């Protein structure tokens, strides 16, 4: 039942925010309710973490080692059930979601001053949808939430976004985001249905249950095509390079809370989908596809970095750097060794924190100097109180300096992949240099260089300070002692690795 509450609380809280705004226009109540809601959900996930037993890898069986499960029949006609479950992988993602959701509420405290209630409705419904994605293990239910979370995100960007230059309005950006994701999502639906009908033809029974469908013997061309359907849907969201067109626009146009959610959570649903569905459901096809996926990851690392260097807009720069970071994640996932997969988890968590931090910072700078254009910044270091100090740490984390969580993630991914695909690792290592370049460019152009003005700008207030401090503590904390995270995901990742590489022979990879 706790899982159902986890899912319901954000939706209820969101509705409450809106109703309150209608009753008492202009009050701050929706913000407090949203904060309380996020705290409640975060509390629930922490409780799940403390009471659950995730770090003892038992015998790796055919079924994932679910910590808690909830299941009721939903649409009997197709054997669809309302099936929620948690294992280490989803738990980490859930905690991440709830934590960043809280940050998103906190960082929009001043930025959003119109239609607060409806804003928080959308914000909380996004969280609800994402929680659903991480909990659902019925494929229909997964798809249900996967598509459903797009609607509030669309509203968030379209209604509270910033209209950029060159005719890139917030509505275009939002529509682009929606269409990219929905179209690729439908491909996934086709794949899901293909899988279900293959199972149906084998057994004469409709089911969308992950546990059952995982045993469907499916290989050859059909398996490959169905796997591609899943992969494309996730690759768009990750994003992987030829399918990344929506990301810079969506990020640049979105309000800060939207960017935090996008970078911190929505991109992670894609990696989660690959780890949970694309690989375990089609291990054979995925193994064949691994070289291509890794190549795409490499392209992403370099292309994202090069794009980032050319940006004038702070948020676009951070968005493009996400493409680069997600390239590492893609490589790690398809390397398939335990070490690389664990690295993927850390990298996702670390990137969520560092990107969220950078987005929040650029939001705060925007509130003070009303621009996101780096040509109009410069020399801000002495003028903003303690803000630039935080920025320095997040930038260093983003370039993967040892001592930050990002370093652990990238390091584990590269070490784990080396045994499987040394060439890829060598090439990806070069990407790290580019990462350092664009990070330092960001630092230099925004905070150093010739100053555009002399006046002292407002420093951080208590709320902003607290938000950034929490992020900072987590980045450094995980950077120094990542074991708690690794413990939680150990079993889940061992399972993925087992199904992916141990059961079936691996083909040669470059």
């Amino acid at each position, binding site marked *: 039942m706790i899982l159902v509450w986890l899912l319901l609380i954000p939706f209820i809280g969101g509705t409450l925010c809106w109703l309150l705004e209608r009753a008492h226009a202009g009050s701050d109540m929706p913000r407090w309710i949203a904060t309380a809601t996020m705290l409640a959900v975060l509390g629930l996930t922490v409780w799940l973490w403390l009471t659950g037993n995730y770090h003892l890898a038992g015998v790796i069986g055919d079924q994932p080692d679910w910590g808690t499960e909830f299941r009721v029949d939903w*649409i009997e006609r197709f054997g669809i059930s309302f099936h929620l479950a948690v294992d280490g992988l989803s738990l980490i993602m859930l905690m991440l979601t709830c934590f960043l959701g809280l940050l998103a509420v906190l960082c929009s405290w001043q930025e959003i001053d119109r239609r607060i209630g409806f804003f928080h409705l959308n914000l909380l419904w996004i969280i609800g949808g994402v929680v659903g994605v991480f909990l659902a293990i019925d494929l229909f239910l997964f*798809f249900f939430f996967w*598509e459903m979370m797009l609607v509030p995100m*669309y509203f968030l960007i379209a*209604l509270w976004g910033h209209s950029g230059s060159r005719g890139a309005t917030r*509505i275009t950006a*939002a529509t682009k985001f929606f*269409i990219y994701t929905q179209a690729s999502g439908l491909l996934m639906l*086709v794949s899901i249905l293909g899988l279900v009908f293959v199972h149906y033809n084998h057994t004469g029974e409709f089911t969308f249950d992950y546990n059952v469908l995982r045993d469907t013997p499916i290989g050859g061309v059909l398996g490959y095509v169905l796997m591609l359907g899943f992969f494309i849907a996730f690759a768009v969201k990750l994003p992987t390079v030829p399918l990344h067109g929506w990301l810079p626009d969506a990020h640049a146009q979105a309000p800060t809370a939207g960017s935090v959610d996008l970078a911190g959570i929505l991109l992670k649903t894609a990696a989660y989908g690959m780890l949970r569905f694309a690989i375990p459901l089609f291990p054979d096809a995925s193994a064949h596809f691994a070289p291509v996926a890794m190549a795409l990851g490499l392209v992403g690392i370099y292309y994202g970095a090069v794009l980032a260097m050319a940006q004038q807009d702070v948020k676009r720069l951070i968005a493009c750097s996400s493409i680069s970071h997600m390239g590492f994640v893609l490589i790690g996932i398809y390397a398939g060794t335990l070490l690389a997969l664990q690295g993927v988890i850390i990298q996702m968590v670390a990137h969520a924190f560092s990107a969220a931090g950078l987005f929040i910072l650029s939001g705060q700078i925007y509130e003070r100097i009303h621009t996101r254009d780096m040509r109009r910044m410069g020399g801000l270091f002495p003028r903003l109180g303690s803000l630039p100090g935080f920025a320095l740490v997040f930038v260093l984390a983003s370039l993967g300096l040892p001592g930050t969580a990002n370093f652990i993630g990238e390091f584990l991914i590269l070490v784990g992949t080396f045994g499987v695909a040394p060439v890829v690792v060598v090439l990806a290592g070069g990407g790290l240099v580019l990462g350092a370049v664009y990070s330092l460019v960001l630092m230099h152009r925004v905070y150093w260089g010739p100053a555009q003005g002399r006046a002292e700008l407002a420093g951080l207030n208590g709320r902003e300070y607290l938000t950034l401090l929490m992020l900072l503590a987590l980045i450094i904390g995980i950077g120094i002692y990542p074991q708690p995270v690794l413990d939680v995901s150990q079993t889940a990742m061992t399972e993925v690795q087992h199904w992916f590489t141990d059961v079936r022979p691996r083909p040669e990879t470059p």
Partner: protein
Amino acid sequence: MTLTGTDLFALLPVLLVLGTALAVLVSVAVSRQHFVNATITVVGLNAALVSLLLVLRATPESVTDLVVIDDHTVLYTALILVASLACSTLAHAYLDGYPGRREEFYMLLLTAVSGGIILAASQHLAALFIGLELLSVPLYGMAAYTYRDHRSLEAGLKYMVLSAAASAFLLFGMALLYAATGTLQINELGAAIDSGVTHRSWLVIGTGMMVIAIAFKLSLVPFHLWTPDVYEGAPAPAAAFLATVGKVAVFAVLVRLFQSAPATADATLHQMIAALALISMIAGNLLALRQNNLKRLLGYSSIAHMGYITVAIVATGSLAVEAAGMYLITYVLATLGAFGVLTLVSSPYDGTDAGAVHNYRGLFWRRPYLAAVMTVMMLSLAGIPSTAGFIGKFYVIALGVQSELWWLVGGIVLGSAIGLYYYLRVMVVMYLFEPGERRRDAAHDWGQRSGGIMVLLIALAVMGIGLFPQPLIRLVEAAGLGSG
């Protein structure tokens, strides 16, 4: 040939609807009271709806050679009745401000409904023709009802001329079929085709011509040219009726035709219909992209939706009949809701409908629940989960995958992606805050009026079906043609 008591009992819904039409006629002769006549209509339609429950015990019942009342008929009749109930409540709100004569609209509507029911029940080509004409002829009048507005008149005339041409095709096709097989009975037609016919080409041409006529009624590309103009010109309740009842009844008979007389076994014809479906999905969505008029936009979107649903005709999978039923129900609900909001915003009639998309700017901040209803409808038409439209789309894609119609599945995916663009545009406009626009608003107490309540109920139904589709699925499954 005599009609027994059971026969008459089975015909109860049609008789009730026709009786109501007569009652309205008499009542109009006595006194022109808009409210009274609207009430008679609604009561009559409700009575017909309730009578379906009784009729359900007697099914399947073949009444003469012409019509058959089986579960399939009952399902589609129910859908037709519900849709026309919604249309008449909308018409009441809409016509309240109409300066001309208002009451005849209900007579036309009721006649068209009876035509629709006969069409859904027909098992004979003659009944098919009678039903189709009985459905179409009153529609000319309904489309041109606000004839002082030249666009309405144009809509009526355009629909009449093109519809008559389609009827000619239909008759010619039937004649050829009769010449080839010697029967007009749909079942026997199927049997005759199975046993082999000497004049194979006549059969193909005959069926092809019938398909053209029906494709015209369903407005599949390239027989769609009338659709946007008629949707735009016709008064909103009439357009709603055309978009729902007009499609449901025709589709009901199409399903029966192709399930009992598998003319689709012919490869050419099969591919032709598949091609029609594919072009409709793509072209309908593409044409809708540039529309700034909501009614035209809905017209083009209905073309696309008819394209999706035609997959159920092409497909051979076991899900076909069920998918057709589910998709039609979800489509009808969403269309009714969208037209309902449009009608409420345009009500009472004051010369033009609130068709332009910019009329809806900022609606959410003035009439939040009405805008929320419209949002749900747009999401449902776009097929987003948690709305009924998704269940329909899920069915059609499942059917396409099951029957391995990869081209059509690709068309659905592509069409949906394109379609999102304009559905989202309509949706987001309602949330933009822009002072200074000329405002068209629903009346303040819209929620307490019958039209408003109806729209809210539809929104609830759309969400309900989206979240808990199982009861409806069971219903539609039970009404499959096999059990009839």
